[in-house]
């Protein structure tokens, strides 16, 4: 009897061993996916964090001559700061220290501060992208001169400016308040962000009510039969159609046939709505199916009509699930690039779009465009835009979770 319940038999031990193995495989799978996630986030953060700051150079500008153009004032300020530079080639190099936009920055500062006129004032100007990268340590100064973007001469000037305290790093508000630019130091995310917001708004306004209505009709009212099966299969197929196909559809129908404005968030939103609709219908139907039939019976047994039953009892219970599905669909639409390329939302947009018919681009397309640009400084812009996109996605998912928790009712 000593052996009772104290098992030494082999098959049992093997069963336990396989269970342990199985658990460990699961843990490894989770650890691996978490690891990838961390690597991705860390690399994007380290690459992109630089874009949130900006290098500025202080120049003593002589605003005494009211007739002189801003461009000339900046030039003279540079030449007086470095009087030893005389040759034309070197002077041209010198002019590339501040951003190409320096004269406009001067205009802006003057407009904000009219008292400056007639004085000699020290003002801050955005540095050009190469100087910016140098200050952020992205340029390897140990390399020979011809293998890097900054010449020894420029390096010496920057060192001189640094010693004089004429170089500083500030928070890059311009990244969030301006549109795209050919100059990396001036390029901002706002035009793309607005484009995304406008497109998503169009997409939501169209696909959410349509999707919910379709889901309710199919689930609660339609007679089950060959037709409803046919429709269901097609909706499921539609959800799996590659997004670029929707882009082609938008190109030929919305742009080609209806002649809607090219590159506009209106068309982008329409295409995204087509793409999101099946997702919302499927999520909505499964949310409706999750409502216990006993609730429907109770309401119908009371003499409620089908519509009353649905609106008073079924929909409130299904809504959290429907909203979650819709937000997940929206999040997917936010990250969508391919269909937008097809309808021309891949343009270089400097102006911030304010209407759904303005030309616009979207965040993921902006990322694609920047990633494609040759300037070194666009690398950090790319990552920074990805950070903005991911932040938005996380925020949307958070909203989905909060909504679900808030409206979830037990039955």
């Amino acid at each position, binding site marked *: 009897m000593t052996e009772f319940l104290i098992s030494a038999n082999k098959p049992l031990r093997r069963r336990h061993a396989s269970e342990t193995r199985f658990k460990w495989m699961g843990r490894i799978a989770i650890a691996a996916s978490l690891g990838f996630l961390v690597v991705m986030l860390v690399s994007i953060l380290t690459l992109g964090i630089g874009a949130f700051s900006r290098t500025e150079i202080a120049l003593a500008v002589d605003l005494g001559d009211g007739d002189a153009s801003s461009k000339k004032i900046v030039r003279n300020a540079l030449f007086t700061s470095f009087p030893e530079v005389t040759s034309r080639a070197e002077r041209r190099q010198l002019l590339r220290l501040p951003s190409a936009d320096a004269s406009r920055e001067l205009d802006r500062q003057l407009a904000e501060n009219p008292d400056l006129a007639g004085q000699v004032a020290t003002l801050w100007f955005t540095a050009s992208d190469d100087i910016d990268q140098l200050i952020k340590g992205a340029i390897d100064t140990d390399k020979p001169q011809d293998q890097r973007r900054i010449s020894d001469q420029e390096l010496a000037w920057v060192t001189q400016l640094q010693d004089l305290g004429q170089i500083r790093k500030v928070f890059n508000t311009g990244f969030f308040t301006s549109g795209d630019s050919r100059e990396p130091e001036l390029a901002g995310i706002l035009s793309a962000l607005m484009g995304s917001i406008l497109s998503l708004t169009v997409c939501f306004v169209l696909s959410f009510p349509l999707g919910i209505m379709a889901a309710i009709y199919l689930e609660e009212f339609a*007679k*089950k*039969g060959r037709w409803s099966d046919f429709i269901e299969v097609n909706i499921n197929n539609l959800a799996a159609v590659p997004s670029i196909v929707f882009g082609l559809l938008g190109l030929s129908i919305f742009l080609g046939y209806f002649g809607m404005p090219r590159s506009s968030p209106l068309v982008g939103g329409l295409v995204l709505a087509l793409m999101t609709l099946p997702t919302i219908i499927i999520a909505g139907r499964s949310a409706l199916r999750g409502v*216990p039939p*006993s*609730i429907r*019976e*109770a*309401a*119908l*047994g*009371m*003499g*409620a*009509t089908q519509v*009353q039953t649905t609106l*008073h*009892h079924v929909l409130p*219970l299904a809504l959290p699930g429907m909203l979650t599905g819709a937000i997940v669909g929206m999040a997917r639409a936010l990250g969508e690039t391919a269909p937008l390329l097809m309808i021309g939302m891949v343009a270089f947009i400097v102006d911030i779009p304010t209407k759904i018919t303005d030309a616009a681009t979207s965040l993921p397309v902006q990322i694609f465009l920047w990633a494609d640009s040759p300037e070194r400084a666009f690398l950090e812009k790319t990552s920074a835009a990805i950070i903005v996109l991911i932040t938005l996605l996380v925020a949307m998912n958070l909203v989905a979770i909060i909504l679900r928790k808030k409206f979830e*009712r*037990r*039955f």
Partner: protein
Amino acid sequence: MSKPPIITARDVNVFYGQKQALNGITLDIPRNKVTSLIGPSGCGKTTFLRSINRMNDLVDICRVTGEIKIEGKDIYDKDVDVVELRAHVGMVFQKPNPFPKSIYDNVIYGPKIHGQIKSKADAQEIVEQSLRRAGLWDEVKDRLHESGTGLSGGQQQRLCIARAIAVSPAVILMDEPASALDPIATAVIEELIDELRKKYTIIIVTHSMQQAARVSQRTAFFHMGDLVESGATKELFTSPQDERTQNYISGRIG
């Protein structure tokens, strides 16, 4: 019998697709009495119950022939509005299914959709009366605005009964109303049923022959889609005419 029966079913056949679930049921349901429908699982008693308030309409493949008259009106006539019908024939289900709303809202829902409420005081009155009749008032009067799903199983079922009687139906159908409850809650429900028959006609489907014997005055025994036998409960249990009834109530089949 002095009063005419409230419901007369004549040759009722119910089909689910090709399958026939009820074979020519002819049955009278007397007024202000409890009629119990008994029989083994799948015998068609619930199907018959659900054809009295046309809940079978919800099943796409279901088809009903024959006639079921309530107060002389065939409920399967074209001009009968099923919403109106269900206001007169209430139903209580097997599993308590209160709406996930407050107790008050549960009770007032029926009167509200049927436009029976004229004022707020009216509503208050209906809620109190219905809950009193369902024997639930004293237990819930201080928490009318708490969720109905927070009650115990037996209380939930009585809330469902209160909800059904709030629209003042003539008939209440009960589909095994106590099968999900413990014996004490069951006893409370049975007492309530006995009380309710003064005002309403009640048809109850039950698996328990003891329950049928305790609460009902009339009993109908179903078997394989046939109505085998019906009559006064006492007589049916003491001297069944049909062999199948005999076998069932003595526990040999079912």
